[in-house]
Every structure is written in C-alpha cells, then in structure tokens.
C-alpha cells in the first residue's frame, strides 16, 4: 500500500472540515475523489501534502508516518501536489518553473533528463519554454503545473481540480495528459467536480460528502450506482 489515510481530521483554524476520513491508494493506481462543493476534497489534498496540519488521524506513505510534517519534507518523500490555483511562479519562465519543480533534485544531469521528459510529454511547453508563466493561457498553465509536479519524479501525484476554469476542449487536453501519466506508471490521486468524466477515466473512486467518505469502489461501479447518479449526475 502506497498511501494510507487513517481517520483523518482536518480543517482551517477552529473550523473542522474532514471527519475521520479513511482512504488507501496502491502503487500504480489512478484514484479519484468526487463530491459536491465544500465536501472537503481540496482539504484532504492539502492535509496529505502538508499545507495544512491535520487535527487528528494518521497519514502513512510508503510505510512511513508523515502526519504533520511540513510541506517541503513531504515533497521530498515523493508526494507532488498540483493545486487548484496552480501556484505557478508567474514571473519566471516556463523552463525556470519546471526547474523549480526539480528543486529537491540537486543533480544537474537528472534535472535535465526530467526536463527533457516533460518536454516530450508536453511539446507545447517546449515551444514556450522562454515565455513567462504568467503570460500563458489557462490550459497551458495547467499543463505547466502538472509538468512542474512531475519534475521531482514523484511516487504519488495529487492533482486538484485540473479542469477548474477551463474551456471543455482544454479540459479534454488536461485529462489526456493525466491519462498518459497514469499509463506511464505514476500513481495519481485526482480530485474533480466533473464527475462523469472523472469516473470514466479512473480505476477507483471515493465519494466525499460533508467531510466523510460516503461511498467507495470501482469507478465503473460508482458511475452506475443509483445514489451517485441521482445526487451528482442528476439522472
């Protein structure tokens, strides 16, 4: 088991959002968390990546307890987080952004290899490597954010709302690139609001409601589940 979240409680300040969330991810899986707005999907991601401190529970990664570690140490352990807001360095070029993604890798040669790998994966980024990140379009920025997350050669990638604020065509592009990553053997945990699409591409899913895991199972089963269809798909 790659990641195991046990009875996680988390929130902001005095506001508790997650209540006893449990989930597991095996190596090589493509798992999604779906759920309505405010259910705590992003909070789960932030708690795992160390951006917020959990109030209770345990997060175990690769057999190691990483609960409450600062974000930079969690990144060093091999978890990359692609946040909803992307958090790009807008006044750095695309290439500089990608190199920052490899900040924890000190070896220049490995950095180059990773850079070439990302440029192969996203030729669009290679074309624009000298452009400032802040001047790129929404879809390109998402690609850059995912590329930057990939630069550190993570074992597990947490991707938060990759389709947020994107035109349908671009959403398709982003999903395709995630697909490529998943097929290349990266473990991905995806949070999405686009439930139909997400359940059609992932292996397994969790349904998060009001800070609790409501349902869990194979994505195809979830997509056909009466409750999920009624609540999220409106059919």
């Amino acid at each position: 088991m790659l990641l195991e979240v046990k009875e996680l409680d988390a929130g902001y300040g005095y506001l508790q959002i997650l209540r006893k969330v449990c989930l597991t991810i095996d190596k090589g899986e493509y798992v999604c968390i779906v759920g309505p707005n405010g259910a705590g999907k992003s909070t789960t991601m932030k708690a795992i990546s160390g951006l917020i401190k959990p109030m209770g529970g345990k997060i175990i990664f690769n057999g190691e307890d990483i609960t409450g570690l600062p974000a930079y140490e969690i990144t060093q352990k091999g978890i990359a987080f692609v946040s909803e807001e992307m958090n790009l360095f807008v006044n750095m070029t695309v290439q500089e952004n990608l190199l920052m993604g490899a900040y924890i890798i000190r070896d220049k040669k490995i950095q180059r290899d990773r850079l070439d790998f990302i440029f192969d994966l996203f030729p669009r980024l290679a074309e624009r490597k000298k452009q400032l990140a802040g001047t790129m379009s929404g879809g390109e920025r998402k690609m850059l954010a995912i590329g930057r997350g990939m630069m550190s050669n993570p074992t597990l990638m947490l991707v938060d709302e990759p389709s947020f604020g994107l035109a349908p065509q671009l959403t398709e592009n982003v999903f395709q690139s995630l697909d490529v990553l998943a097929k290349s053997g990266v473990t991905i945990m995806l949070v999405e609001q686009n439930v139909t699409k997400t359940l059609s591409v992932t292996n397994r899913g969790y349904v998060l409601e009001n800070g609790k895991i409501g349902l869990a199972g194979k994505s195809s089963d979830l997509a056909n589940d009466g409750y999920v269809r009624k609540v999220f798909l409106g059919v």
Partner: protein
Amino acid sequence: MMAMSEKFSLEFNLKAGENNFMSKNNKAFVGWIKSAPGITISGSIILAVFATIYSGPYILVNVIITGGMLALVATGLTLILGVLNIAMFAHGEYFMIGSLTAYYVFTPISNYVNENPDSILAITGPLIAIALSMISGAIAGVISEKIVFGPLRRRSTDNWVMNSFLLTVGLSVLLINLHQLIFGADFKGIVRYWGGMPTEIAGVFISRDRIMAFIISAFIVLVFWLFMTYTRTGRAIRAVSQDVTGAQIVGINIENIVLLTIALSCALSGVAGGSLLFMYPSYPTMGLEPLYMAWFVVILSGLGNILGAVVGAFMVALLKVMTVEYVGAGWDFVVPSILIMMVLIFKPSGIFGSEVRGVLDK
C-alpha cells in the same frame, strides 16, 4: 551611470520578455521607448547628460555614489517586501548598525596605521571594517527575525501587513534609542578610509574613497543579481516571493529562505552604511534618510522588483542630486516626494511594475 542603467534596463526587458532590445528590431525598440520604463530611463539619461554638460561631470559622480548606495539599501528593502511581505521601516537602522560597526572597527586600525604607515592594514583595514559592517548587518537582521518577526509569524498572520509594519516602526525607534543610550548622540565619523590624492577622471577630481565606495556597491549589486538569477538558492528566494504555497509544494523550506533573505537584505544595508562612513558619520537617526530614499526607490520601481530597484535607485539619486543642484539643498526630499505621489496616482504598480503585486493582494 548611463551605461549601467541602460544595461540593466536591457536585461530587465529581456527578462520581462516583452520587447526584445537585442533583436535589433526597430519596432520593438520604438515600443520599448514608448513604454513607461522606456520613457523614464531615456528621460533620466537625457537629463543626466544635459546636467553633466551644463554644470560639469561632478553631478554624474554624485549621482553614481548616491545611486550605488541607494541601490544597496533599496534592493534589500524590496527583497524583504517581496519574500517576507513586510513593509520594512527599520531598514535604515541596519545601515546605522553597519556604519557604527565600521567606525568602531576602523578607528583602532586607523590609529595603528598612523603609527605604522607601511603596514598592510593601510590597504586592507578599510576592507576589513566594511566586511564586518556587512556581517554585523546580517547578524542584526537574523536577531530581529528570531526575536521579533518570527514569533509574530508563528503566532498569527492575520492582518500581517499592518502588524509587521508597526513592529518595524517600533524596532526602528528602539534601535535608534539604543544607539543613543549606549554610544551617545554625537557624530562618530572618520576622516578617510584610504585617503591619498584624489584621482582625476575626465577632468573631475574624485577621492579614492568615493571610487572605492562605488566599486564596492557595484560589485555587491552585481554579485547579488547573479546570485538571485542563476543559483538554486537565489531562484528559491524569487520563488518564495512570487508564490509561497507554490514554493512549499516544490519542496522549499520557507523558514530557511526567510532567514536567509532577512540576513542578506540587512547585510546589504549594513555594507552601504559601512562603506559610506567617510561621507556620513554614524549617529542615532542617520538611517532615516537612506530609509526614506530607499522607499522612494521601491515605490518608483515597483514593489518586490529587484532589477527595477537598481535602475530606480539611480533615477532617485539623479533626481536628488539635480534638486540639490538646481532647486536648493533643502528641497531634496520635496521633489522626490512629489514624484512618488504622481507615481502612486498615475501608475500605482510602479514604473517597472511587471514583477509586482500589491502588498495587500497576497
């Protein structure tokens, strides 16, 4: 100064990726000339040339010395603003600490050199004093981070901009009065660092100390710029200033970067104070003038923009020297203040405002 500001503006533009100066593309050049940085930089160069022809090259010398010093203080200020999001109003006090250190280190050296004129210390002594002023600035910065800003950040970041600003004002008052209490309120100055006959450059006599002061500040600003642009740590500092969450995600230890940033910026301010001790003797409130001037630079060039701060420093220096020359010595704060008001009204993000977000946006 002209060559320098042009070079920096050039690199600045390359960096901003807007109009590529080097491409020899006429259109791009015209576009750059019409942009806000273009107008102000070419305007300043024309002004400087005009003043040099009209009143003599000593104006240029003054601009270069003042600008070099301002660049040191202002880059530190802009760095703290960008990385720690602190509107620093105690930065002049690190300048004061630097000059105080240089005074107490250099006075015994100077006495020794007077007795043994052939000693190697005649050349290296001032450098030792200046280097120690830099180190003392850095140490003072680290101490203030450890006992003032760090605890506040850990306790609460609500209303951070206002609270940290008030803390810096308090720190400034505290340091000024500590100086007065411990070292007294008199002027603690030296006659000269290196002394000797002034060097003649293009018909102007410039004292060796002034040349050295400029070389030191130019060297430090250059090294600093290279550090920020090409090293891993420099990139990390810029990353933190652009997006703290992003920096955490890629694995940067924010606490370390914050400590390094404050040490670096205070060291820059300290070395400015140390290297200019021969011009400005150390006294409790000596830091206020460079502080205000550095704030003019930061507002003019845009918050958190390092290269812009260097160019802006020479512009403000030019403005100050020109005001003293043509309007009157008492007006050197008035004219820049008017300019700052105009900038805030018409171009609140500053002239080179590309690398900028308002402090409150963060």
